[in-house]
């Protein structure tokens, strides 16, 4: 399972980098959301002041690189950290399927919330194709989270011990 996921991760990364470098078009749906993964990892596995501090840089990165109204992405990212922490404390997250479900669930919730807010605000820049691309991005980021989290959580445990 893990070897397959790693192979999938490498192939997707290669495809995304090729599309971007050769065409100049930014294939966001092929790229995993690394800052999101970092925040959720800090919540699920690290916790405490260290986890909180670890979640701040990726939250700031999202705030600075996403063209949303000021501070919305920083606050929602920190909210994501606390949600993840709550899940991490109440669920057994070492099983691969749990990790996949948690990450996909959180990504889906975030995406649907933003789409909902934008629709309420009166803008509708979404289409069927956009939905398909977003589904690819969510599935792909969730799949990448499994081997990444399994590996990193093991290393983090050893560091703590």
């Amino acid at each position: 399972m893990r070897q397959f996921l790693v192979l999938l991760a490498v192939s997707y990364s290669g495809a995304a980098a090729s599309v971007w470098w050769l065409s100049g078009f930014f294939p966001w749906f092929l790229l995993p959301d690394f800052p999101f993964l970092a925040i959720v990892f800090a919540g699920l596995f690290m916790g405490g002041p260290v986890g909180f501090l670890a979640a701040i840089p990726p939250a700031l990165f999202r705030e600075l690189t996403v063209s949303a109204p000021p501070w919305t992405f920083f606050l929602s990212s920190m909210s994501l950290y606390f949600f993840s922490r709550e899940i991490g404390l109440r669920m057994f997250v070492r099983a691969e399927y749990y990790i996949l479900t948690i990450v996909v669930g959180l990504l889906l919730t975030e995406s649907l919330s933003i789409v909902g807010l934008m629709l309420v605000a009166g803008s509708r820049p979404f289409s069927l194709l956009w939905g398909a691309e977003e589904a690819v991005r969510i599935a792909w980021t969730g799949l990448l989270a499994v081997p990444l989290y399994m590996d990193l959580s093991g290393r983090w445990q050893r560091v703590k011990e």
Partner: protein
Amino acid sequence: MGSFFRKWWRLLTAILLLSVAIQFFVRPPLALSRADSVHAAGSVVFRPVYATVDYARRGIHTVWSHYIALVEVSRENDRLRREVAALREKIHENRDTLLENRRLRELLHFSEAAERKTIGARVVGHDVSPWFQAVFIDAGIEAGVEPGMAVVTPAGGIGRIHKTYSGLAEVLLLTDGRFAADVIVERSRVRAIAEGMGGNLCRLKYVSPTQDVVAGDRILFSGFDGSMPKGILLGTVVSADRPREGLFQKIKVQTAVNLQAAEEVLVVLSRPSIPFRAGKL
């Protein structure tokens, strides 16, 4: 009660933060938009990253287009020869119109230079999220760039400056859902509001079914709302549907410029006549 808060404080904090974020999203506070020192500092940190990634991408793109993709050159050469012949013919046709146009402009004392003072900038980064459509350019506050200024290319409009930093500015693209501007149909002079709808598309709003808009019509910015310069090309109508029910036509416009692939742009350095509020257009 105390034990409830002790047990659930993380969840309550998450909900509180999320509520504030939603409030800021729907009603961005003006004070926060102004006090943007963290964003300014962050832009200084990320500017070299954008520049490095952009440099690497351009390097690989150059190697590809100059050496590896030479197979296509011969075919492209033939196509370009045919295009040059067609364009020469077109130039002859347009010469008279051009001279007449020049005379009329002089007659009206139209000062193009004063109205369209621009500076060139390079696109150095893209918004990394799937929800918003924006690019970053390497011209910022020092160059006189201000929020609300129009960003164009000779081929058509690109968008509007959203935020400015030192040496960097964020451009909200025409196709972003928050972009809206007054436009006019070149052929029939029908006015409408263009709004971003993702991809490379915009929609035209408030066009009555009785008004004359068909696929293939060119859409220009009217300049009436003061946000984009008059006469700049937005794009071409790809579909115009007249629904049986409903007050307005459903019109889709494909932007003239491939916004995701634009590399060099011009910022029109005239201040917008309508006050601009970052985050809420």
